[in-house]
C-alpha cells in the first residue's frame, strides 16, 4: 500500500526513520509521559521491595510554561508548554550512592509491534537549567548555576527474544562542581550484581539494569554504568543566565537487530558510535517485548535542577 502522510510543520525539524512510532509535542498535553515509579507489589499493603536506593521520592513531571523570576514566561519551542523534569533539592557527592529525590524521571511505556528488528531512533528538542533561587558565592557570575546539573540522559529499557538490555546515553555535565561536559553511552562494566548495587546483596536491579541509578561512581566522573564516547566532549548552549533556555536538538540512533549503538547527535554535532554493543542481561518476568523510552535529569548539589522537553519523536525502519 502506498500512502502519503502529511504532518504538522514541527515534523520538519526532525529526521525520522521510515516509520514513526510516537510523535509527542507537549503543548498538547502529557501524551502518556509520566513520572517513573517503582513497583507496588509487596504485602500487606502494596509495599515496594527493600532497596539500597529508594525510588518513590522522585519529583513529579509536569507541563511547564518555563516561567522565571525576572523575565517571566519563556513558553516552549512549539507553543507554551514543555514537559518538565525536576529534582528535589537534595544531592550526594558524585561518588556516593545517589540520594532519593536527586533524580527527575519521565517515561512512556511501549512495546514492539512489528516482528522486524533494526534501527530505532529517538529525537527530541530540549533544554536544561538550575533553579534560579540563589547566588552561589560572591565571585563574578556566581549567579549562574550551570554546575548544579550533574547529568541528563535518555534510555530505552528493552526486553526482546530472551534478553534484556538498556540502550541509552547521558551528558555528564558536572562532577562535584567541576564541569565535565561530555557524552557517555550506557554500558555496564564487568562487575558483580552486588557491586552494581553499591554492595547490597539481592537487589532487584541487577548489573546492566537501570544504569542511571546503579553502578559505582568514581570521583573523576567514571561510572560502572556508562562509557565515555571517544572525543565525546561538547559544550552546549546553556546560555548566560539560569533564566534563559535555548532549545537544543538531540538524537540517538541504535540497532535492535545488531544490538549496538549507531549515532548520537546533539545540536549540529554527530558522534559515530557504530559497533559499540549493549550490555545484554537475563530477562525479567512480565516485560517481554518491553520498549520503554526514559528521560532523566540528576543534580550535583542541593538544588532543584530542571530539564524541559518540547517534543519527542521515536521512529524505526
Amino acid at each position: 500500500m502506498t500512502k502519503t502522510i502529511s504532518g504538522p510543520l514541527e515534523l520538519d525539524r526532525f529526521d525520522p526513520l521510515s516509520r514513526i512510532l510516537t510523535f509527542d509535542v507537549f503543548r498538547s498535553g502529557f501524551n502518556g509521559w509520566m513520572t517513573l515509579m517503582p513497583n507496588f507489589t509487596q504485602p500487606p499493603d502494596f509495599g515496594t521491595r527493600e532497596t539500597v536506593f529508594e525510588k518513590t521520592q522522585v519529583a513529579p513531571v509536569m507541563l511547564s510554561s518555563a516561567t522565571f523570576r525576572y523575565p517571566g514566561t519563556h513558553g516552549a519551542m512549539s507553543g507554551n508548554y514543555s514537559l518538565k523534569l525536576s529534582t528535589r533539592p537534595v544531592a550526594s557527592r558524585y561518588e556516593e550512592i545517589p540520594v532519593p529525590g536527586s533524580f527527575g524521571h519521565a517515561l512512556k511505556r511501549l512495546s514492539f509491534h512489528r516482528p522486524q528488528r533494526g534501527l530505532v531512533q529517538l529525537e527530541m528538542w530540549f533544554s536544561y537549567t538550575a533553579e534560579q533561587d540563589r547566588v552561589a558565592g560572591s565571585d563574578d557570575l556566581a549567579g549562574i548555576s550551570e554546575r548544579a546539573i550533574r547529568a541528563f540522559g535518555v534510555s530505552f529499557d528493552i526486553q526482546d527474544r530472551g534478553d534484556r538490555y538498556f540502550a541509552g546515553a547521558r551528558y555528564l555535565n558536572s562532577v562535584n562542581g567541576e564541569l565535565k561536559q561530555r557524552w557517555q553511552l550506557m554500558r555496564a562494566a564487568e562487575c558483580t550484581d552486588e557491586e552494581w548495587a553499591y554492595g547490597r546483596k539481592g537487589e532487584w536491579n541487577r548489573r546492566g539494569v537501570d544504569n542511571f541509578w546503579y553502578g559505582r561512581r568514581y570521583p573523576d566522573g567514571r561510572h560502572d554504568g556508562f562509557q565515555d564516547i571517544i572525543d565525546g566532549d561538547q559544550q552546549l548552549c546553556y546560555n548566560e543566565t539560569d533564566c534563559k533556555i535555548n532549545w537544543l536538538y538531540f538524537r540517538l540512533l541504535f540497532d535492535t537487530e545488531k544490538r549496538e549503538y549507531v549515532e548520537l547527535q546533539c545540536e549540529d554535532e554527530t558522534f559515530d558510535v557504530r559497533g559499540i554493543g549493549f550490555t545484554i542481561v537475563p530477562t525479567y518476568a512480565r516485560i517481554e517485548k518491553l520498549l520503554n523510552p526514559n528521560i532523566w535529569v540528576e543534580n550535583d548539589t542541593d538544588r532543584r535542577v530542571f530539564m524541559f522537553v518540547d517534543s519527542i519523536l521515536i521512529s524505526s525502519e
Partner: protein
Amino acid sequence: MREFNTAPLEVRKTVSQDFQTHPYECGWASEAIFFIHVEEMAGENAQLTATVELSNDGIHWIPDGTRSEIISSKGLHLIKATHFGGWLRLDCSVAGEHAQFRLNIQLALKG
C-alpha cells in the same frame, strides 16, 4: 476533551515535621484538587493542617487563604484551589506529641 493529570507530589512519605510539597506547575489547568491520603498515623493528638500557597516563579510563595480542615484521621482528605496562576504547593504543619503521618499526596489538575 480536557487535559487531565494527577501528579504524585509525595508518595507514601512519612513526616513528623512541617514541610512543603514540591513546587508544581499548573498554568495550563483551571481546576486543582490536592488529595491528601493519610495511610498511617501515630502520636498523641496528631494533627496535620495544609495551606494552599501560590507563586509567580516557583521560588517565592504566599498563602492564598485556603486552608484544609484539621486532619486527624486516616483516609482521604482534600483541599481545592481556585484562581491559582502558574504554580501550586501545600504548606503543611504537623502538630501533636511524637506525631507522625504516612502520606500519599496527589494533585489532580484539569484544564
